[in-house]
């Protein structure tokens, strides 16, 4: 199959860029090595919209962060993605920290972050009643927030498909050849031809670039471990709480999630170049999160933890700390979108626009489509409906009356919708990310086997071919005797 553009990697950047390019009249494909969208960094990160005071003045990171933060509400509204503009607080514990807040304020001001304020201990305690008594002040940034990162990627992908883009999953690229003005991408599902390539391969972006002879950067997987707590803990924290960066490092953050849980983490450990699949949690990492949290909110414990997990950030090796978003020096029809670590999620909408501009300059031959569908309709969320709406819906389709996931109140109808959606769920984790079935406190203890049954029925495969997240991650083996 021949395409005008191939986007490699279906993380939040790949998906948002594919959506952006689907505005143009061209043949577009997004290639993903996993069984689903958002399987790398995009599914395991802090899920924060950063206001933009961290990145260095004048950097691409700073520009795209501030732009992204202001675009996020618009995109989440268009794509029906959970987003809450709750604001962030950088908490100070010493006079040194208070000096750091001034520095952050100034940096943020120069980056264009609006409405920041340095607040007093009293104001802080009013906003965060459970904060440590050692906390003496904070930097308040009202434009920060929280978003569901994988839902943003899934929604952007669905919207891109609505606009004609193709998505090929289980299609990891293992070789690229360039001849006669054409890229030949060898993938796990055959050879894909494309005139232009956008490399959004996350922690693997260096390996993809190397396939066209671009060895200008290397990516270190930087591991971060997290705890996700039950919704019962949500009263403990109201805003994104950052520990003031100090000589001891950046410290961890505590935040409500877009769905009302509490998330805490991450640690930061650099792994070897060849450990890009290592998302194991560790005793040391989890202990660090627990002990750091006690300094911020002493009463917050992991007693009501739902799960712990680890994710990898794509950190560029060496001194360059900025995003790499540019045409490759090795081939100008190949665009690298690399080193997209924090605030990459925040910046994603702005990165998509920025890559769109690069592409239009690089390939002016493609025109804008006359019709672009900018809105992805919201999936049905039964427990967000009014009583009347719910009754009406169940009358129309009784499957919305059958609750499968007790903890989150998710119905069979919603699970089937997630499977039948464009680029729908193909595995248990895919259902979980789209519907939240299995995301609650029992962690799928009751509904897991029912979700397997529904996947088996809707995808018309035997139960022992249903997986947790593709490939060899199957759930059950042979039939019993």
């Amino acid at each position, binding site marked *: 199959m021949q395409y005008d553009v191939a986007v490699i990697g279906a993380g939040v950047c790949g998906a948002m860029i594919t959506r952006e390019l689907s505005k143009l009249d061209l043949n577009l494909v997004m290639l993903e090595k996993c069984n689903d969208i958002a399987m790398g960094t995009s599914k395991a990160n802090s899920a924060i919209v950063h206001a933009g005071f961290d990145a260095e003045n004048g950097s691409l990171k700073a520009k795209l962060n501030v732009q992204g933060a202001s675009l996020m509400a618009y995109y989440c509204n268009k794509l029906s993605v959970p987003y809450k503009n709750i604001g962030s607080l950088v908490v100070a514990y010493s006079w040194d920290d208070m000096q750091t807040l001034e520095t952050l304020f100034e940096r943020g001001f120069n980056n264009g972050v609006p409405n920041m304020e340095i607040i007093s201990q009293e104001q802080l305690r009013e906003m965060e009643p459970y904060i440590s008594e050692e906390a003496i002040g904070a930097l308040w940034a009202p434009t920060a927030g929280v978003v569901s990162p994988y839902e943003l990627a899934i929604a952007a992908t669905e919207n891109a498909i609505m606009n004609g883009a193709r998505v090929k999953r289980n299609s990891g690229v293992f070789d690229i050849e360039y001849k006669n003005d054409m890229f030949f991408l060898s993938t796990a599902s055959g050879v894909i031809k494309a005139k232009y390539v956008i490399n959004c391969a996350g922690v693997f972006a260096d390996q993809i670039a190397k396939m066209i002879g671009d060895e200008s950067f290397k990516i270190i997987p930087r591991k971060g471990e997290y705890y996700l707590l039950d919704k019962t803990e949500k009263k403990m924290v109201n805003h994104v709480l950052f520990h003031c960066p100090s000589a001891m490092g950046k410290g961890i953050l505590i935040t409500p999630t877009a769905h009302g849980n509490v998330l805490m983490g991450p640690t930061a450990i650099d792994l070897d170049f060849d450990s890009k699949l290592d998302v194991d949690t560790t*005793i040391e990492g989890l202990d660090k999160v627990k002990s750091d949290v006690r300094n911020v909110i002493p009463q917050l414990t992991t007693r009501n933890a739902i799960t712990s997990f680890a994710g990898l950030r794509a950190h560029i090796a060496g001194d360059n700390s900025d995003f790499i978003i540019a045409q490759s020096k090795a081939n100008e029809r190949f665009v690298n979108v690399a080193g997209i670590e924090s605030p990459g999620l925040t910046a994603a909408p702005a990165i998509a626009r920025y890559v769109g501009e690069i592409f239009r300059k690089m390939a002016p031959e493609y025109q804008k489509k006359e019709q672009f569908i900018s809105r992805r309709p919201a999936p049905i969320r039964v427990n967000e409906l009014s009583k009347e709406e719910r009754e009406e819906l*169940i009358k129309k389709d009784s499957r919305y009356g*059958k*609750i499968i996931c*007790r903890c989150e109140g998710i119905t069979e109808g919603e699970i089937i919708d997630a499977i039948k959606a464009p680029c729908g769920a193909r595995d248990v984790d895919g259902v979980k990310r789209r519907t939240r079935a299995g995301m609650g*406190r*029992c962690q799928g203890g009751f509904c897991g086997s029912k979700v397997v049954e529904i996947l088996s029925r809707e995808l018309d495969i035997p139960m022992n071919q249903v997986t947790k997240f593709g490939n*060899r*991650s199957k759930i059950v*083996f042979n039939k019993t005797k």
Partner: protein
Amino acid sequence: MLKYDLAVIGGGPAGMAAALKARECGVAKIIILERAETLGGILEQCIHTGFGLHYFGEELSGPEYAHRFIEQVEKTDIDVKVDTMVIDILPGNVVVATNNTDGLLEINATAIILAMGCRERPRGALDIPGSRASGIMTAGTAQKYVNIDGYMPGKKIVILGSGDIGLIMARRMTLEGAKVEMVCELMPYSGGLTRNIVQCLDDLGIPLKLSCTVIKTHGIERLEGVTIANVDEHRKPIPGTEQFVECDTLLLSVGLIPENELTRMAGIIIDPVTNGAIVDEYRQTSRPGVFACGNVLQVHDLVDYVTQESQIAGEGAAKYIQSKSKSRSRSGKCIHVKAQNGVRYVVPQNINCTTDGDVKIYFRVTDIFKNAKIVVTAGDKVLYSKKKKKLAPGEMESVPIKLEDIKKIDKQDIIVRVEA
């Protein structure tokens, strides 16, 4: 809005026994709301025997035990709605439920019995570091795959936790041809019934490793093994004792948690030790007219005791409904029952001063005790004292308190303790 005298939430052994008892005591309009496709609750997947020895005096399988009650329910005009999930309890005892035929149901009931059962502690609550591979699940989930769906969840198994479901599954998986490498138990003793350890592990040669836990899971996609280690008296892994065990499946049997989400939504006071409601001798919760019984109230070792407890709740609900129609309410004064030395919790936690019969207090001990005495006192009066050869946290104990003794108590608490 539907109107009932009694709404029972949950159609497992607890809900059925409570509803039947209430009917026997003369309650007219009763409805059972069950979230699964059939009545019977978790017993439907417990196809092993060992149920009913105390209550029926014979050894039944789980479905057989359940069926005895299902038959009785079917003989009555108790309304049953299966596939129906209760999503809220509103003020004024209005139960909100949803299913695929009625849409949203609102049921106004004079009394409500909570009988939602319990769930297993999942991996996330355990803090086992390692990979997110498939092949890690609770023993009960595995039981459903094997006994209901007819699929094997793995071939080479390690079981963490020696709770009864884990022990039962060790035997079940072995009989189905899987190799169960070992059962690891964090504590120096098993939380399961002695008979299960003998029949499910010893008879099949499956090692039970006490004071041992899983400290890491391996494998990127499917589980490939676990690292186990011995633990010290503070339950911390002892360096140098780590050992890799190859396996494709890790089953967790590390405790049960009463499913009290609805109870909490209804604003009912929860006992932090049992994780169930605080109740009186008729299993009435802090909210008048709302009763709780079975594993939602306290995790039981035997279903027979669930049945007994639920009958108490059914009777209590009947009395409540009947006293209400005569517009007579019970006095609020009550005696507190408290757990001390060696006793982890007691149920009921309160006894009404106006109670009308003997009361049995159920409890579990905190540790293994040999040749110890169970002592119950009120002030300086000993209400009960009995020497026991062995007491174990895995087994529920009970002591009877006579009505005449209760009547004599003046303001003191009833204390239950173990004397070594």
